[in-house]
């Protein structure tokens, strides 16, 4: 009985209606002022709103721990950002003021009953944290703030990968609603990925002790520390971590160098098709789910092998793969030097990530929900390439994929 066919595109005009609308558009171009009336609206559930909203997660997957009673590598901490484009004018405008941008994750409205993170926040962080409140003060629903001159966002949503129903869900769908003067003027949905599938137990499995104790005991043995007696331990308290903005202790290797460097030579102990999934989520989660994964491109083909990622000279979360490392096309431009894909701005202030989707979920993704925003805005999965998602009419000028065009 289970229907595996993609959800119907409610509101999508029929082929006949599309032809009528396109023909009407042609008339409208001649007619000038009446153009907006006859143009084909973008297909999909959000076509009726005056603003297009393109939302994205900054990482494509946030991994966190399941148990914080002994140590903390990563807390719950998701980030959502969105660009709002007013499409009612002849030339679309990025909206940066006088709107309210709300976010919520309907299937996941509370989290403090699903994890022991808050119970150990005080000993781990040195200060108490109110249940349901993340490290930056964000909650599971609320209002986004202006992040840059061009987009809105919320940082540090304390999301865990368990729905309110109790089932695991590493790809919960966030709803982003834009209001002006109390009226909804735009809406979208975007995956807010989170997983705690870190399979340390594949190797750290000494009988009679927990995985975390096994890890801390190994650290004590190899590095002459006394962590087992200091539980719970915040790893970034010593190991500098750009992901958390933790400065670490001078002279101690960064988190990424320590983790990747220490384990690079040991991965042969386990037999996984993708060794990255021993620690990054994961064997069942398969967080690398984007168009590259669909084409059989593995993690290390972009990131390099573990030894390369663990190179002490590499800056974690800053020195990341770049599109132009592989992609080249005459006339095309990609991220400028020193700017990550997630922060890069392309077409008229629209961020690359807004049309291409999040890292590790670049459309068309292998996961249905990661394609939803594209499908909802233009009727098909893949990069948002339908001009009428934002423009009233298809511009006569081509978009040459150069920054600033």
């Amino acid at each position, binding site marked *: 009985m289970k229907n595996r066919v993609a959800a119907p595109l409610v509101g999508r005009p029929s082929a006949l209606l599309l032809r009528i609308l396109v023909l009407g558009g042609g008339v409208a171009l001649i007619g000038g002022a009446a153009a907006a009336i006859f143009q084909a609206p973008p297909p999909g559930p959000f076509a009726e709103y005056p603003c297009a909203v393109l939302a994205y997660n900054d990482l494509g997957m946030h991994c966190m721990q399941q148990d914080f*009673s*002994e140590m903390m590598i990563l807390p719950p901490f998701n980030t959502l950002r969105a660009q709002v484009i007013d499409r009612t004018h002849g030339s679309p405008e990025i909206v940066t003021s006088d709107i309210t941008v709300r976010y919520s994750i309907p299937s996941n*409205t*509370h989290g*403090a009953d699903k*994890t022991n993170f808050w119970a150990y926040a005080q000993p781990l962080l040195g200060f108490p944290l109110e249940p349901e409140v993340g490290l930056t003060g964000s909650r599971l629903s609320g209002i986004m703030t202006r992040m840059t001159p061009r987009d809105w966002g919320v940082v540090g949503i304390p999301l865990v990968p368990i729905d*309110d129903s109790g*089932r695991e869900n590493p790809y919960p769908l966030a709803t982003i609603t834009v209001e002006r003067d109390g009226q909804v003027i735009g809406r979208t949905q975007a995956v807010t990925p989170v997983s705690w599938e870190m399979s340390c137990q594949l190797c750290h499995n000494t009988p009679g002790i927990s995985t975390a104790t096994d890890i801390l005991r190994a650290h004590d043995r190899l590095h002459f520390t006394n962590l087992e007696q200091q539980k719970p331990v915040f790893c970034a308290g010593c190991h500098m971590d750009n992901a958390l903005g933790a400065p670490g202790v001078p002279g101690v290797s960064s988190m990424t160098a320590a983790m990747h460097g220490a384990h690079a030579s040991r991965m042969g102990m386990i037999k996984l098709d993708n060794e990255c999934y021993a620690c990054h989520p994961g064997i069942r989660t398969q967080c690398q789910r984007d168009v590259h994964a669909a084409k059989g491109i593995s993690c290390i083909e972009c990131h390099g092998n573990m030894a390369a990622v663990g190179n002490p000279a590499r800056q974690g979360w800053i020195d990341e793969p770049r599109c132009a490392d592989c992609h080249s096309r005459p006339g095309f431009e990609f991220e400028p030097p020193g700017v990550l894909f997630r922060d890069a701005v392309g077409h008229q202030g629209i961020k690359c990530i807004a049309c291409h989707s999040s890292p590790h979920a670049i459309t068309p993704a292998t996961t249905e929900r990661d394609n939803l925003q594209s499908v909802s805005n233009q009727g098909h999965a893949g990069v948002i390439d339908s001009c009428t998602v934002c423009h009233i009419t298809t511009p006569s000028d081509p978009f040459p994929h150069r920054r600033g065009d």
Partner: protein
Amino acid sequence: MRTATFMLALLGGASVCQAQIYHVTDLGTLGGQSYGFFIAESGLATGCASVAESQNFHAVSFQAGVLTDLGTVGGDSQSVAFSVDSAGRIIGMSFNLTDLRHGAFASGPAGLESIGDFAARAANARGDIAGYLNRSITGLGLVDRACVLLSGTTSPIELATLGGSNAYAFGLNNAQPARIVGLSFTTADSASHPALWIGGAVHDLGTLGGTRGCAYGINTHNQVVGTAETASGAPHAFRFTVDDAGNVLSRTDLGFLSGNQSCAYAINDVGQIVGNSFARACLWDDTGIHDLNQLIAPGSSWVLESAQWITGSGRIIGRGSLVGVPHAFLLTPCPADFNYDGALDSQDFFDFLGVFFATSPGADFNSSGLVDSQDLFDFLVAFFTGC
């Protein structure tokens, strides 16, 4: 004669002993983790467990000490068993992480069988199943809506929201029509409130002063439990009592053990409530809130983190941490320690007599549905045998 014997023993102190209140049973794993969600009065329990190699979660049943992998449905990689219906069928949902579409299943002679394209979350003794389904709606996109599959039917009925986009049903009782509880977003999706559905009507149960809340369980006395924010935004377990028209008669903040946080998942017909507070499984009864970790044998390797369900006879299922690994647990009570103070003594006798002569539902010691002399005799037997 029985009473006279008891009084003599009591005066002599023969039965007074320190006792653990609950015996804890590890329900096992499939090589990874396990979670317990429900236990029927028959002793059949349900949940999910991860398979060692694939790490996929499969629905499992636990009965008489045996953990059984129920597999998945239709090529799905994941499944979770949440309940048992009136016919003894195990109910739950099956899905893939890649599309997260919902498929409801029921166990049958040939294994798990699909019963519809919705997420089955709870079943009642009448055979109704509550849950939620996906819908694509113009202007809203892909949304979830609470639904109920009525006994004997094959198509779930979508339930109304409180004006918002999404709603979920997580529990229901045995009334006709069933009282169904869950959460619904309100108009403009500005809040998410505990919701009650009776027939085709939805009722906003409100919160404890905040903007968010969720109802998980309801008993036959229309007592609803869940978690809701207080005015300060702290999530507290609650018990709301409603009437048959869906009006809220009382709202009780159940408090917390520590950390200004708690959540209640289930309530039985004698009013015992289970849930968690700051990562500790807990029980609420007439005497207040109890940390279940304090009611098992000292020195245990367990950390009981969340209690998910409690039967009428007081058996509790949930999830805990056993040497750092999530394991499903079953707690079997010492029913004669009537006041849950950890000591089997004369106070239990007097507390029992108090509710017995008040003919309170709590005196239905043998869960027969009646408060009668047999309850008294059964209590005495349990008391003198030390649980």
